[in-house]
């Protein structure tokens, strides 16, 4: 059973398009996250949601809009894609964002986004 799944695995699109990435976790966790990993492998948090409520928004352009229909799902919609958005996007979950000193995060397999 996959704990954290993302679709699609690869996404190739033109500048200016709008795209979405979906994420689901079956771990019963309360908190979900989106991370961006750039070409230098630097992993940076973008958003976190706890029980469908936004907890962290790391000064991400408002072209990026996360949506959490329920606590098992956190989707990422990106408007007007730019070349600089090319990266690998990881979804993750943890039991509770306030318990990271006791619990780990579980990451999905990643979505490689290429903007042409």
């Amino acid at each position, binding site marked *: 059973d996959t704990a954290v799944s993302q679709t699609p695995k690869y996404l190739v699109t033109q500048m200016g398009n709008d795209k979405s990435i979906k994420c689901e976790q079956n771990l019963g966790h309360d908190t979900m996250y989106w991370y961006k990993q750039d070409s230098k*492998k630097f992993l*940076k948090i973008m958003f*976190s949601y706890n029980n469908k409520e936004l907890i962290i928004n790391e000064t991400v352009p408002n072209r990026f809009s996360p949506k959490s229909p329920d606590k098992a799902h956190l989707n990422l919609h990106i408007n007007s894609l730019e070349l600089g958005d090319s990266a690998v996007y990881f979804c993750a979950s943890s039991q509770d*964002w306030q318990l*990271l*000193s006791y619990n780990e*995060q579980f*990451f999905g397999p990643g979505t490689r986004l290429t903007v042409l």
Partner: protein
Amino acid sequence: SQKIEQNSEALNIQEGKTATLTCNYTNYSPAYLQWYRQDPGRGPVFLLLIRENEKEKRKERLKVTFDTTLKQSLFHITASQPADSATYLCALGRGGATNKLIFGTGTLLAVQP
């Protein structure tokens, strides 16, 4: 602003030796630290967690230390194997209203048979 740095170069070691990876931080006071392993084309996988009041944690061949005076964590893999080859990431957090993980730059470990 806070800075988290890991071994800047890839680390190459011989099978059977102990690999030691470093995680140094500045302008930051973490309450806890986590280590993850990332294989090519995959998401990070959790390995170990250590809190500021703990000096050392072990799990099988893995050991992590946390020195808040030196502002450093060391991650050791004893009796290393080629299967240990991967990128290792340290991640720091300090709790509070915006509790989150801040990841280091990662260290690529290559264990030669």
